[in-house]
C-alpha cells in the first residue's frame, strides 16, 4: 500500500482511499509523540528541505518536527535570507536544491501552482504546504484527522466553513477533502469574500451565520486576513466581528455538541471570541498537535515508497 504519486500537490489529485491511508498511518504515528524518546529510525539518511516563500509557524515547525522524529535531516530555507532576494527564480532555486539530492521538498509559495512547477522540474517528492489561494492539502488532512478522532464516521457529517472563503486555500482543500469523504459542506461569509459561483463546488452558500451553523456537526472559522481590509472587501474589523464572528451568544444557535475548528493563526475577538477559542468544544490545539502526525505519515508514505 502506498500513494500513487511521488508528490502531494493538492487534495484534488488524490483519492478517498489515499486519504484514508494517510489518516490511518497518522493514527499510528501519533503514539510516537507520547514517548520519552520521540524518535524512530525510519527516514535515516533522507533529506527534507522546507522552502517557505511565505511566513509560517505551525506548518513549517510541524514539518520540521515530523521529519526529525522520523530521523530525516531537515533543512529550512527562509527566502528572506536566501538567494531569492538576489532575484533567483523559482526554477533556478529548485534546480539548485535538486543538485543537493533532497528526497522531499516542502514548499509554500504565494503563487498558485508553484509546487506543480517544482514537481515537474524535480525528481524528488514535492509537498504543497500552501500555494496562493489554491490548496493547502496537509491542513485539510489534519482537519479530517482531528474530526475523525471525535466523530469516527466522517460520512454524512455537516460542516460550516465561515469567513474569507475567496482567499482561503484552507477552505478550498477542506471542501475537496470533506466532499471526497462524503461530508456536506456549507460556506458562509460576506458576499465580497465568497467566490462567485461557489455553489459550483457543490457547497451550500449562506450569508447568515446563524442559519449556516444551525444544525452542523462542525464549525470551521477562517482567519480574517487583515491585509484584505485595505481592498475595501469589508468596512471594519468591528463590523466583521459583529456580523460573522463566533461568540458565545451565536454559539447557542448551534448544536450543543458542535465541534469548533480554526486553522490558525487566530485573531482573538475578531472572527472568534476568546471564550469560544478556549472553550470545551474547541479543537484548535488538537489541530496543531495532529499536524505533526499527519506530516509524519506523509513523509513516510512519500519518502519511503518504491519510487525512491
Amino acid at each position, binding site marked *: *500500500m*502506498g500513494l500513487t504519486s511521488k508528490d502531494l500537490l493538492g487534495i484534488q489529485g488524490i483519492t478517498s482511499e489515499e486519504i484514508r*491511508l494517510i489518516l*490511518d*498511518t497518522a*493514527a*499510528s*504515528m501519533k*503514539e510516537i509523540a507520547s*514517548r*520519552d*524518546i520521540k*524518535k*524512530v*529510525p*525510519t527516514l535515516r539518511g533522507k533529506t527534507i528541505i522546507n522552502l517557505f516563500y511565505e511566513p509560517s509557524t505551525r506548518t513549517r515547525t510541524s514539518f520540521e518536527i515530523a521529519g526529525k522524529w*522520523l530521523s530525516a535531516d531537515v533543512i529550512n530555507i527562509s527566502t528572506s535570507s536566501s538567494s531569492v532576494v538576489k532575484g533567483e527564480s523559482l526554477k533556478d532555486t529548485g534546480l539548485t536544491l535538486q543538485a543537493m539530492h533532497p528526497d522531499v521538498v516542502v514548499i509554500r509559495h504565494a503563487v498558485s501552482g508553484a509546487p506543480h512547477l517544482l514537481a515537474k522540474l524535480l525528481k524528488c517528492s514535492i509537498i504543497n504546504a500552501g500555494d496562493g489561494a489554491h490548496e493547502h492539502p496537509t491542513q485539510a488532512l489534519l482537519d479530517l484527522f482531528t474530526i475523525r478522532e471525535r466523530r469516527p464516521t466522517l460520512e454524512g457529517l455537516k460542516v460550516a466553513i465561515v469567513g474569507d472563503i475567496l482567499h482561503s486555500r484552507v477552505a478550498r482543500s477542506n471542501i475537496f477533502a470533506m466532499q471526497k469523504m462524503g461530508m456536506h459542506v456549507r460556506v458562509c461569509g460576506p458576499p465580497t469574500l465568497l467566490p462567485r459561483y461557489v455553489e459550483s463546488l457543490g457547497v451550500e452558500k449562506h450569508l447568515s451565520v446563524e442559519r449556516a451553523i444551525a444544525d452542523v456537526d462542525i464549525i470551521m472559522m477562517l482567519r480574517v486576513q487583515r491585509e484584505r481590509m485595505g481592498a475595501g472587501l469589508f468596512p471594519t474589523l468591528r463590523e466583521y466581528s459583529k456580523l460573522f464572528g463566533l461568540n458565545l451568544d451565536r454559539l447557542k444557535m448551534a448544536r450543543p455538541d458542535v465541534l469548533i475548528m480554526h486553522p490558525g493563526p487566530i485573531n482573538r475577538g475578531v472572527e472568534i471570541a476568546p471564550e469560544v477559542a478556549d472553550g470545551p468544544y474547541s479543537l484548535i490545539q488538537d489541530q496543531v498537535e495532529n499536524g505533526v502526525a499527519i506530516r509524519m*505519515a506523509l513523509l*513516510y*508514505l512519500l519518502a*519511503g*515508497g*518504491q519510487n*525512491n
Partner: protein
Amino acid sequence: MSTRREKAQVLDPVGMGRAITRIAHEIGERNKGVEGVVLIGLRSRGVELAQRIAAKLEEIEGVKVPVGALDITLYRDDFGRAATQPVVRRTEIPFSVNDKRVVLVDDVLFTGRTTRAALDGLMDLGRPQCVQLAVLVDRGHRELPIRADYVGKNLPTSRNEAVQVFMAEEDSVDKVVIYEAVEE
C-alpha cells in the same frame, strides 16, 4: 510469476492449544512465576498469540499479565526496498517497560530480522530488565544471531516455502500451514 500451493498443515487447533499451554508453563517456570513479566506481541498475529498466552498464564498462576502490541514497521531494515510499502500500524503498550521482564511474542521466527527490529523498537520505549522471545513456529534460516527462548514447534523448511499462522480471532480458524512455491 509464481504462486503457492498448500503443502501440509503442521498444527491443528488442538496442537496449537497444546503449544500455547506449554509456552505459558515454560514462561512461568523460567521466570519463577510471573512477577514483573509482561507480554508484548508483534503485530498482528503475535498480539493474539500474546493474549492467548496471557489467558493461559492467568489460569496457571492466577495473575493477569499485561499485554501490549508493538508494530515494527518503522524499524524495518528493508525500508524502500520492499516491493510494496508496508502499512504502519499502531503500537499500543499501556504500561512502562522499564525494569520489566519482557517476553516478545511473534508467530513465526525466520530470518530474525523482525526480532531485531522489535528489539530496537522496544529499547526506544524504555529499559527492560530482560527480554525473552516466544514464537509459535521456528522455521530456521536465521540471518542474524537471534534465537527464541520459547518455541511452540520447530519446523524444518526450505527457503522458498512459506509458513502461515492462522488464528481464530482474525482468520476464523486456528492452524499453521506450510506452502510451497509453484512455478507457472
